[in-house]
């Protein structure tokens, strides 16, 4: 695949469907996070992640 054929290849990949898959994963992740006890995104005390550690 040459660089010149890249735009055509990207169009053929149906970017809207790729974006839909990513958004579906994001939605599922956020929903699962909302339902979890251990929440990473939604506000809820989670002591280990009030500050993300810079190293282990």
């Amino acid at each position: 695949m040459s660089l010149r054929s890249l735009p055509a290849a990207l169009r053929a990949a149906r970017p809207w469907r790729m974006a839909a898959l990513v958004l579906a994963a994001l939605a599922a992740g956020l929903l699962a996070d909302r339902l979890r006890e251990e929440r990473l995104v939604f506000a809820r005390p989670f002591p280990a992640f009030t500050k993300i550690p810079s190293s282990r």
Partner: protein
Amino acid sequence: MKAARWLRWLLGLVFLVAGVLKLVHPGDFLVELAAYRVPFPGMFLRLVAVSLPWLEIICGVCLVLDRWPESVRPLVTALCLVFVVMLGQAVVRGLDLQCGCFGRFGPAWLERPDVALVRALLLLAVSAWLTRHEGGAAGLSGR
């Protein structure tokens, strides 16, 4: 082609297993992401930690079932490329971390960044080959 089908199933199962194992403990996955020390905001890392396992599961299922190959295979290739870049920078910087690919369930040696980098390169090669020759965007456009 038989080999292509086996490779597709293998790639799909790897993504499926990796996604499910990460999903069990997303908190651990966030800690492992933070250990890569990339300059992204904390909220972005949190969103990645909650959504990447689902994206891997969706891609894994689509690969196994051969659903939407023209979209899923380039997406998987892009994901593998991101994994290679992340692991590559970790190896170059000599970061002491567990790759986090299989949650906390992977054996320690399999989670070493150099081993994980080789694995990610292999996955990238397989996904790029599937995309190019076996029904990905470029493959389909040529038919």
